[in-house]
């Protein structure tokens, strides 16, 4: 590998790929937002998805846990094709953690309750066990002291860290992050990225849509550059940021570097 600060070595995939997208297509009316997407994500791998607005990054993320349906192609998670609906789909979603740009914490529930809800209702854990786990997770993301508050009483950075804890509480196989820091004030971005970086170090499989180059360089194994519904380029962060091969990526990078 090149000499950039990669704090994490690319781990040898334990047993094959965790997520495999094959020839995935998706339209919104006339708009072809995902065009023949092929993407494999290995266990423990951290993939950063980057690209211009409207390129289909969110749609890709949302397709992986079927918040968005696809028109054709196949998505396989941990060896199983994505179920269409019902119980199996709910079970799959529990295995795929998702963190949203706008946090989406349950507004009528306390922070603690946000983190215990899925454990109790989906994982069928005892309340006490769920509470303990929630408190440990809240501690891990640095918001243990806020457990009894409501989401609206927290800063954006704190809310997003709670959202990460809420997803982790399900013991997901993979975590999806859709621009987790773009709704945050600049001074709060790092506290969230730090939590994510730690998660990557712990070996979590992650797909992260972000424009945070620092994070991509220090935590990602691979950068996927998406534009106009296609994966235009896939490479290491070092390679991508210093010497992208496609014109589209060069153009995009020159814009985000000089904004």
């Amino acid at each position, binding site marked *: 590998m090149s000499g950039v600060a990669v704090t994490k070595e690319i781990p040898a995939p334990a047993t094959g790929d965790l997520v495999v997208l094959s020839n995935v297509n998706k339209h919104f009316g006339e708009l072809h937002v995902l065009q023949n997407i092929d993407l494999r994500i290995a266990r423990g791998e951290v993939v950063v998805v980057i690209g211009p607005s409207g390129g289909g990054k969110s749609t890709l993320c949302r397709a992986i*846990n079927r*918040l968005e349906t696809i028109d054709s192609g196949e998505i396989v998670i941990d060896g199983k094709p994505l179920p269409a609906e*019902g*119980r199996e789909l*709910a*079970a*799959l*979603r*529990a*295995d*795929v*953690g*998702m963190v*949203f740009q*706008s*946090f*989406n*914490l*349950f*507004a*009528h529930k306390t922070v603690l309750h946000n983190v215990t*809800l*899925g454990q109790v*209702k*989906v994982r069928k854990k005892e309340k006490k066990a769920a509470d303990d786990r929630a408190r440990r997770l809240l501690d891990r993301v640095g918001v243990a002291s806020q457990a009894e508050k*409501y989401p*609206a*009483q927290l800063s954006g950075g704190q809310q997003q860290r709670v*959202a990460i804890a*809420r*997803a982790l509480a*399900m013991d997901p196989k993979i975590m999806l992050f859709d621009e987790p820091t773009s709704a945050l004030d600049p001074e709060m971005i790092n506290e969230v990225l730090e939590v994510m970086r730690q998660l990557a170090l712990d070996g979590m499989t992650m797909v992260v849509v972000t424009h945070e180059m620092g994070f991509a360089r220090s935590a990602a194994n691979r950068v996927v550059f998406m534009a106009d519904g296609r994966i235009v380029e896939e490479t290491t962060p070092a390679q991508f940021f210093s010497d992208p091969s496609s014109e589209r990526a060069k153009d995009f990078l020159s814009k985000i570097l000089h904004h």
Partner: protein
Amino acid sequence: MFDFLKGYDLLAAFWVTVQLTFYSAVGSLIWGTVLAAMRVSPVPLMRGFGTAYVNVVRNIPLTVVIVFTSLGLFQTLGVTLGAADFTTINFRLAVLGLTAYTSSFVCEALRSGINTVPVGQTEAARAIGLNFPQVLRLIVLPQAFRSVVGPLASVLIALTKNTTVAAAIGVAEAAALMRVMIENEAQLILISAIFAFGFICLTLPTGLFLGWVSKKVSVRR
């Protein structure tokens, strides 16, 4: 001045009004919630039923609904709702009619509340693996209810006043007694005032209390 009131059991009549209101309120809250759930459900058949129900029932005059419970359900079809004497049968039929009618308004109030819940709440709930009924019960409805306590209070107040229609099928609630008293006593204005006051005593505290609840439970975003 109030001597003529002797011989009339006002409290008993208003007690019937309260009971009619209470049972119908509970019934329409439950049935209205079920209807609202149908209207947002992913199953087309349920959605269709919910929509049809609301659009038909809330456009029929309440008097017609109540009279139908008596003429149609009881006298034609023999539905007695498990009661033996006329008083109880009529009371239960009235509760049924009021519930059927009011629930369409509860449903619509609730549905507007559901629309105020940001879609991100539902997505986050689905993303942790909750199924549709759980998403509705644990995330959407609790927030929807909190945002429509005000409108629901209006529905409840309307219901309280609407119970007077039950007199049409012989339920001895407040308005039925008022009619009797107006016929027998030469005190039209005073009697009307007494009954108006009685209804205000029922509805005003309800409105104030629910207004307070509404502020108390509102969801901060």
